[in-house]
């Protein structure tokens, strides 16, 4: 401002021609807000096109996903109720916590369809909050990875040390509550071997759990949370632990138990001997055994396919509906009579 004042009053002598200290802003597309831009207008035609396009893309994907899901054969068996004695919750808890009772439980499963190997064995828990804040943070990744940090149990409350003060490895609630039911499968007299190698993500094995870190003082406390670990096997090979420690997102979750590398034929009867050690009775959680094949999309998962199909179908429907509306009662693009001040000229 001062500049303009100065230049207007000082430049009184020389008339229009060249003005030296002009305050005239320089032209640029940015400052004049004239950057080249495309201006998409969401015309009915565009709406219909987009919906059609989404439909065209989504329906085939949906069909493919659904087909993949349908190809998957899954056997789910809930065994927590049948494998327990006692009627009330307290009785059940007492039974499961009593070290002397027999936890063996035999169930039979019938194969509904041919299942090609590999067949994955999962256990599924319910009402188990692996994502509880206290639970999730109760671990020490450094300790699991590095043998030098075996004594580093920070963050592992309340499973840091044994009562006599020696550090637990692996420490923390997650490891402490390791799932310890076991399953053994047989068809007739023939045992089905369960391969427990390779059920965890490779990155976990290679990087998060050390191959020179061995369990120590694990489950030595007064209260035993779950499974014990073989102290002569390094953590990187304790895949049950590795799988368990990749905490689940929701309170209902599946964890891989192993895989059966043998084809199963339809109507074959599988006998499963379950050692029902794990206490889910305290909190009324269900336990399920799952046998499942897999497809390119993974396990049985209708949701994705249905979602794709629904959206694709909905888009087709909307596209059609809009086309009908568009043909029956078209709105002329850019009709000035739609302008509000033309609609009621009194100007309100």
């Amino acid at each position, binding site marked *: 401002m001062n500049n*303009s004042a100065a*230049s*207007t*009053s000082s430049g009184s002598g020389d*008339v229009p021609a060249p*003005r030296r200290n002009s*305050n*005239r*802003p320089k032209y640029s597309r*940015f*400052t*004049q807000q004239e*950057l080249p*831009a*495309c*201006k*998409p*207008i*969401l*015309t009915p035609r565009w709406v219909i096109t*987009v919906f059609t396009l989404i439909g065209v893309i989504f329906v085939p*994907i949906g069909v493919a996903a659904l087909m993949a899901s349908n190809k998957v054969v899954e056997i789910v068996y809930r065994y927590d109720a049948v494998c327990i004695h006692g009627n009330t919750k307290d009785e059940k808890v007492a039974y499961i916590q009593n070290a002397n009772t027999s936890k063996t439980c035999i169930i039979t499963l019938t194969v509904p369809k041919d299942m090609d190997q590999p067949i994955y064995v*999962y256990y599924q828990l319910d009402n188990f*909050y692996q*994502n*509880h*804040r*206290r*639970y999730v943070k109760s671990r020490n*990744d*450094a300790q699991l990875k590095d043998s030098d940090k075996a004594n580093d149990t*920070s963050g592992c409350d*309340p499973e840091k040390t044994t009562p006599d003060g020696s550090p637990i490895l692996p420490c923390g*609630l997650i490891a402490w509550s390791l799932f310890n039911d076991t399953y053994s499968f047989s068809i007739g007299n023939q045992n089905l071997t369960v391969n427990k190698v390779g*059920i965890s993500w490779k*990155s976990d094995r290679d*990087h998060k759990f050390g191959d020179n870190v061995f369990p120590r003082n694990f489950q030595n406390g007064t209260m035993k*949370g779950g499974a014990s670990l073989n102290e002569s096997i390094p953590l990187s090979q304790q895949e049950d632990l590795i799988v368990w420690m*990749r905490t*689940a*997102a*929701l*309170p*209902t979750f599946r964890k*891989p138990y192993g895989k059966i590398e043998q084809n199963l034929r339809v109507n074959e009867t599988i006998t499963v001997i379950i050692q029902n050690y794990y206490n889910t009775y305290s909190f*009324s959680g269900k336990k399920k055994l799952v046998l499942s094949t*897999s497809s390119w*999309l*993974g*396990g049985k*998962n209708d949701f*994705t396919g249905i979602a*794709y199909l629904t*959206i694709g179908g909905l888009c087709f429907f*909307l596209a059609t509906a809009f086309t009908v509306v568009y043909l029956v009662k078209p709105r002329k*693009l*850019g009709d000035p009579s*739609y*302008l509000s*001040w033309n609609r009621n000229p009194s100007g309100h």
Partner: protein
Amino acid sequence: MMNSMSVPSKRSTLERKLDKLILTLFGGLFFMCLIGAIGSGVFINRKYYYLGLFEDVEQQFNPSNRFVVSILTMFTLITLYSTIIPISLYVSIEMIKFIQCAQFINKDLRMYHAETNTPALARTSNLNEELGQVEYIFSDKTGTLTRNLMEFFKCSIGGVSYGVGITEIERGQAQREGRALNEIQKSDTVVYEKGFNFDDDRIMRGAWRNERDPEIFKEFFRCLALCHTVLPEGDESPEKIVYQAASPDEAALVTAAKHFGFFFYRRTPTTVQLRESHVEKMGNIQDVSYEILNVLEFNSTRKRQSVVCRYPNGRLVLYCKGADNVIYERLAGTNQDIKRLTREHLEQFGSSGLRTLCLAYRDLTIDTYENWNEKFVQAKSSLRDREKKLDEVAEMIEKDLILIGSTAIEDKLQEGVPDCIDTLSRAGIKIWVLTGDKMETAINIAYACNLINNDMKQLIITSETDAIREAEEKGDPVEISRVIRDSVSHDLKRCLEEAQQDLHIFGQKLALVIDGKCLMYALDPSFRVDLLKLSLNCSSVVCCRVSPLQKAQVTSLVKKGARRITLSIGDGANDVSMIQAAHVGVGISGLEGMQAVMASDFAIAQFRFLKDLLLVHGRWSYIRLCKVITYFFYKNLTFTLTQFWFTFHTGFSGQRFYDDWFQSLYNVIFTALPVIILGLFDKDVSASLAKKYPQLYKEGIRNTYFKWAVVGVWAFFAFYQSLIFYYFTTTASENGHNSSGKIFGLWDVSTMAFTCVVITVNLRLLMACNSITRWHHLSISGSILAWFVFIFIYSGVMTPNDRQENVYFTIYVLMSTFYFYLTLLLVPIVALFGDFLYLGLQRWFFPYNYQIVQEIHRDEVDSISRTEFLEIGNHLTPDEARSYAIAQLPREKSKHTGFAFDSPGYESFFASQAGVYVPQKAWDVARRASVRSSKRTSQR
């Protein structure tokens, strides 16, 4: 100083509304936390033995005291959900506004005034969007609507009217009535000088000698040249002299005298020296020195000014000039013809929007003068009531005057004012003129500006009624106030009734004209409501004879009473309080002083630039900021709600769904830039279309884009989207997700969800854009890319530190599955499905006006105005060259309001010359300083 107010700090209405939104969000935050806290208290139980809730567990998870658990969880949740409060919003808004001001408003070539070399200036970056919502404009007249450029335009001498020019008003009137005016081509010899725009071959260049009565011409010119308080400055030649005047009218009159051949070139304390041409005979030039004996100064009650001077030959004459009614009262009884003719001319001039003055003289005998002078000196040296006594003494000699004629001065309108006002009123903006001028002038200017036209009914509330005048003559202040009060109350009621009737029954537009004295009473709390109701019903309001303080009061009345957004525009010190009182103050930078600019929020060089400032910059800023705010609201709500849904599945423990770094960087990196780009570049319609369809501006006045309904729609879709994000990514999480049957953990799911959120939220922004530049593309793809780069590095590296390696390798795990890609395609499209459908339906069936305009002009390429701009300033048309040259002249250092003699600094200006102390007024100081210095030069 009496009229000055404390400088208010201004915040935009939008920001105030934003505060409410933020408060609502805080409410929402509290509500969410409360639910979570109650849930956590209910949930916590020792039965979940795997949580290790032994006797010595910390308070936060101790089931023995559920209340404490709730309270502590509440705090945890507050930190967890704090993302709902868009903290970075304020920073982003400030950034956007600053760039809008510094780069767009200040550098807009459309608002650059080449003649004064002045670009627009945004003095605050707070109020950009307020410009898009202005409903009432309060405008000063002089210097804002008019140029404060007084040009001697016509005159009437001895009952004959001279001057061939045609005013804008006459032209406008003729246009309205469909008459053609035959414009007389001005002769080549016509003189152009600031203050003089007159041509008539009958009197120019000495031709007056051939008129019927040359003597009266001499009196006329001498009166112009002698009866004034102008100081000449600079070289004593007609071309180079500069007149320092208290009002531009005075300067115009003296300049006119110069062109008529009576060149006033020097003032000494006692004399005025003129270079008179053609007096004795044609072509004869002689220097004459007149002795100035007394100066009877101007004030608002006297409305006239006189000097007593002695000719070199000893003749004593009193020259007087003043308002027509004042002069006519004091004329001698002779010469009725001239009086009648002159009055006719006065009316003619007045209706053409010209400002008139009557000139008269009186020959004095030495005796009369000596007698009177004694009394004058006495009065002047009296200590009490000096002003009053001086007035009384002046009254004794200013009588039996002989009318010479009248002058008519054109108060030139600023360029483009009528067009601008027309456009603004079509934009739904109501323009009020607040001026110190007398009513007739104000109405004239209002007519000239298209503010009032003949289709409108004029409601006039004035103090110039017989009853009031009668009361004033009696002089009892209590009585006067009672009479005015009654009359104002009566008038208000009458007008209100008429207004209701006319507006609702006949649909006629109304114009209210009210003068300052009535306004003083009407602003009284008891009438205020009526006044407001009445004035809000009127399409235009003209307040005349108002003081600076009243200007501010009227502004506040509308601002506070009607709760509408107001804008004040003015150029001078007397507009400062009004500028400060309004929501937005705009100062005219250019010829006048700096006070208005210093008090203003925006400074523009011309009134017509308001069109660009409001319809283009204001509108865009408003729309952009609304979008920015609602978008911020949406993106944070969506993000936080996914977290909220997760809480229900974690036993209300306050476990994070997202990694800390995701949460912290969400607002800072992954979604920060695109919204700023939107706030800078979004353009629904081009600048020229915004001005072509001013009605589009109404959407801002009605606050169409930041209503609760709009926020509600965004909130609804945020809600919908968050549900999609959360459930679609978690629902299938219990199954294996690749052919080797492996299972995702919490952090895999959350990384997937976060990826979906980032992509969706960025794409949603693209859907909100009206124009997409490559900056949009860059910033949006950049943001999404930034997320991937970040997660590739972050999850790929193991740090030696003791951090939890939660997200280690998650993205690689995810990317090894088909499921991830299917989800990545599915979730954003499902999430945006609702928005897309809404936008499509809205546009199809309930289009906004701007959308129609977009469609009308969809095939037009934005004309790049570069060439048009390049021409500005390089080639000036002759007219521009002239006004440029005038602008280059030393600036007027006076403040002028209204009618020629009405300048507020006038009395003190005079007084300072006479060495009399008069209380200082703010606007005087600078001028007086300059007067003193010029006086020295003139005496040299």
